[in-house]
């Protein structure tokens, strides 16, 4: 067993096998949900090809020197911001958002790439020796790095991806060791913004909450005043932002606030998704035998609602297996975060973990009716070439950091 130990020492099989099993389950679900359709019939083959290409890229990323990631941080961030600007001009509109760039027969979402680029660049900034998160200036620089892609993605508008970036920003600041006060400064505008979505009373309550917190920390009056102003501004901004959202996203938010508002539109999907999963029972209805899936009651089952296919056809056992695979993947990756040979790489691991986790959180939460319907794919499982490619790249980075953890810096 020495050989196997040695292999596992340089190559984390647990992580790799969890991801591989997720891709295989995804392929089964894609096949099942598209075999009866007109236009998506080829999705299984396309996903299989994407996986093949992704594996090559995975092993390439796995093998390169770990220093590469630090060097790539700034160029890839600049490049991704440019792509996000370009997509606003020449992007293809799919599902109400101008978020795809197409060249040749290939199309991809710049937001996918921007996630990785932002992780690298923000980690690079936070891991500098002189960065001090007790200094508000550095917090604001970090916020600027994180908020720039968010602002551009909001213009597309792609709500789902924006959540992922907010997750990255918070996770990295938290991992770096932001103080509770700093965390309050970063978090409170978001809380106020969400509250104001529900109505003016919630907005006022949230502002009072902020005032109490500011009083608790007993900072100087000028600082407290400007933070309060920032919060009030965030509340008003949300009203305008709500108007930027595409009608289908506005509808989805309304449906979340009041699910009965539109039982045949956005609400219909949420209801049918729950019916599909619930009717799967303990063992499921069997591969290719889910009637909700086969009769196409739920739209986009091969991407955003793929968990419904698993829930219906493979039942509680199947869904549990998928959740456990994700749990193993998350915990194993988080464990690696403390083994990384420097702070930069540790932050990168946490950033990537956050991307996987937020996607998982929102996607599965949406399918089982805990969260509103927000279009965001399930990592490794959902159909989508560029999404699989970037996920396998990020997996490659994690495994690279694991491989090189004992090398001298």
């Amino acid at each position, binding site marked *: 067993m020495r050989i196997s130990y040695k292999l596992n020492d340089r190559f984390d099989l647990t992580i790799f096998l969890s991801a591989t099993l997720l891709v295989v389950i995804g392929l089964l679900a894609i096949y099942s949900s598209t075999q*009866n*359709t*007109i*236009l998506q*019939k080829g999705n299984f083959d396309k996903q299989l090809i994407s996986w093949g290409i992704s594996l090559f890229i995975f092993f390439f990323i796995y093998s390169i020197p770990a220093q590469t990631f630090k060097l790539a941080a700034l160029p890839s961030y600049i490049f991704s911001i440019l792509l996000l600007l370009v997509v606003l001009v020449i992007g293809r509109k799919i599902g109400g958002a101008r978020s795809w760039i197409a060249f040749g027969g290939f199309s991809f979402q710049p937001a996918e790439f921007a996630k990785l680029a932002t992780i690298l660049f923000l980690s690079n900034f936070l891991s500098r020796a002189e960065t001090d998160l*007790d200094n508000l200036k550095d917090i604001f620089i970090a916020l600027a790095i994180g908020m720039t892609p968010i602002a551009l993605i909001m213009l597309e508008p792609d709500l789902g991806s924006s959540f992922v970036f907010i997750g990255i920003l918070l*996770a990295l600041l*938290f*991992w770096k*060791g932001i*103080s*509770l*006060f*700093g965390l309050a400064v970063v978090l409170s505008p978001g809380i106020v913004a969400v509250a104001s979505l529900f109505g003016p009373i919630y907005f006022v309550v949230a502002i009072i909450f902020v005032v109490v917190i500011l009083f608790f*920390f007993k900072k100087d009056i000028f600082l407290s005043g400007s933070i309060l102003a920032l919060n009030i501004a965030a509340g008003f901004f949300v009203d305008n932002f709500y108007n930027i959202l595409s009608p289908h996203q506005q509808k989805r938010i309304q449906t979340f606030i009041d699910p009965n508002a539109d*039982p*045949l539109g956005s609400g*219909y999907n949420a209801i*049918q998704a*729950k*019916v*599909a*999963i*619930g*009717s*799967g*029972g*303990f063992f499921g209805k069997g591969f290719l035998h889910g*009637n*909700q899936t086969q*009769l*196409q*009651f739920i739209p986009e089952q091969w991407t955003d609602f793929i968990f419904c296919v698993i*829930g*219906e056809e493979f*039942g*509680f056992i199947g*869904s*549990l297996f998928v*959740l456990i695979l*994700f*749990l193993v993947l*998350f*915990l194993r990756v*988080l464990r690696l*975060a*403390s083994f990384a040979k420097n702070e930069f790489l540790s932050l990168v691991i*946490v950033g990537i*973990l956050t991307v996987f*986790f937020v996607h998982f*959180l929102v996607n*599965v*939460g949406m399918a*089982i009716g*805990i969260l509103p319907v927000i279009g965001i794919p399930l990592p490794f499982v959902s159909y989508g070439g560029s999404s699989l490619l970037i996920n396998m790249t990020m997996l490659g980075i994690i495994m690279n950091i694991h491989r090189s953890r004992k090398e001298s810096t």
Partner: protein
Amino acid sequence: MSAQIPFFDRKKIFYGIIIAVVSLYIFKLFQMQILAHEQFDAKASGNSIKAIEQIALRGVFYDRNMKLLVENTPAYTVRITPAEYDTSWNKKIETILDLDNGFITNMLYKNRIYSKFIPLRVKRGADFSAIAWIEENSEHLSGVDYVIEMQRGYPFGAMGSHVFGYSKEISPAQLKKEEEYYQPGDLIGSIGLEKKYEKDIRGVKGYNYILVDSRRREVGKYKEGKNDIASQKGNDLVLSIDGELQKIAEEELAGRAGAVAAIEPFTGEVMVLASSPQFDLNQFSYVTPKDYLRQLMGDPLKPQFNRASMAAHPPGSTFKLLCAIAALDLGVIDPSTTLYCGGSFSFGRSFKCHGAHGSVNVITAIEKSCNVFFYQLIFKIGLDRLKEYATRFGLGKKLGIDINEETRGLIPNSAYYEKIYGKNWPRGILVSLGIGQGEVNVTPLQLANYCGLIASDGKTFVPHLVKGYLDENKKFHSYKYKEVNVGIKQEVFNIVKEGMFRVVNGAGTGTSIKISDIQIAGKTGTAQNPHGKDHALFVAFAPYENPKIAVAVLIENAGFGATWAAPIAKKIIETYVRRTMPKTAVAPDKKNVDTQLGVEPIAD
């Protein structure tokens, strides 16, 4: 600053969040899939909401007098749902529905890429006896049903196959382009007005929400149909076509290959657009029986070809009017200019005329259709300047009529000949161009438009078949068309029209169609056809003083225009004028013509 959390705890918080979320989700799944499984299962296999598309009623077509030309009539459509269908019934159903052998197998194969739960239409317009048989055997015939759908009917009796056009089931290629509205099996306009006005007449689909069980069996309406969206009928079109005239033209053309186009001068409204032979729209729509298609394809006269707007032939002597207009407008001749006709014209070789006309002015040259006059004229005008005038009168270009089936035809210019023969192309080619033979090619529609422009002194609108539409409240809205003005001096029109008047009412080539109380002005033409007998042509407008109709008639391989084409134009003009202007028709002959008696009318 304050309240730091140690690194170790931060990692613990991450662990905590991950485990909490996954546990919450597992708990929720346990609750849904195990505890509440029965309820969800009942919902899934018992009731589900399904949106059933309601096809909108297509708009109907009225003629210019609000007579119904194209209507919707209810008909039975038999459908098969592949998922539930037993293919051992194929033979029996094919016999009962009078389908080609193997039709169902073929249909199922072609549609294998679509959902097996969507019913496929096997036959539209099925007989009542077939429906009775399906009803009787419904217990054994799982996956076979029938619905009542609307079919096109043509109550007026005008066939209008090329104008009205037909709809066909949407093809996979079209579906890819228009997937946001259409579904497999939907009808979409395929040619003619049905295609051009598809978006106006198709209406808006509706949706009925029904509760279905897992096998898609309907178990009731969702919320008693409160959420249903009714389909909206498409707009009814009011055509500029005159049903009666169209019918006469079709009857006159029956048994021949040819076309009739009639336009209202000043407005550009197309009143007749008939092409012969026709094809049966009832047979052709939806799924064409193979036998009928084979018959159409095998017919040497190509019935599917719209001769009225696509057959480009030399205009023959009808082209002389354009030469006269160009020469007068350019000032290379004036009304008193005479040219000598000794019966032939030499230019390299001898070009014949049908008679020796002596010294003739332009009016007489038109009246007698003197070739020698126009042989000489074209050299005075010049080829490129002639083309410019032809283009102004809509010859040799697409007019932009509101059906897609239109060709350009051809008016050559010097560049055209240079391309074929080089810089020193033989100028002798020009001689026959002067009388509308050779490389000039125009369509009957272009001729009618050209004749209408002469009648209206050069002012009209782009020719069109549809005046406007009726909205859901039966309120009429007219479509706007582009104005056309050829910009030629009024005197020029007066002279040319005088010549055309004499063709019919003087000692010209068209006196055989003279009517004492309706003043027709016209021009005969015979297009030389290297492949067979000449094509007969005639253009005319009436009444002379107050033009209300301009007609062009083409009869292929018939002979002289005066003999074959002119009588059809006469019949259409006479019918129209007597019906719409009874007072004008009985008014006495206002115009005095110095009829040169004793001269036999000559067919050119």
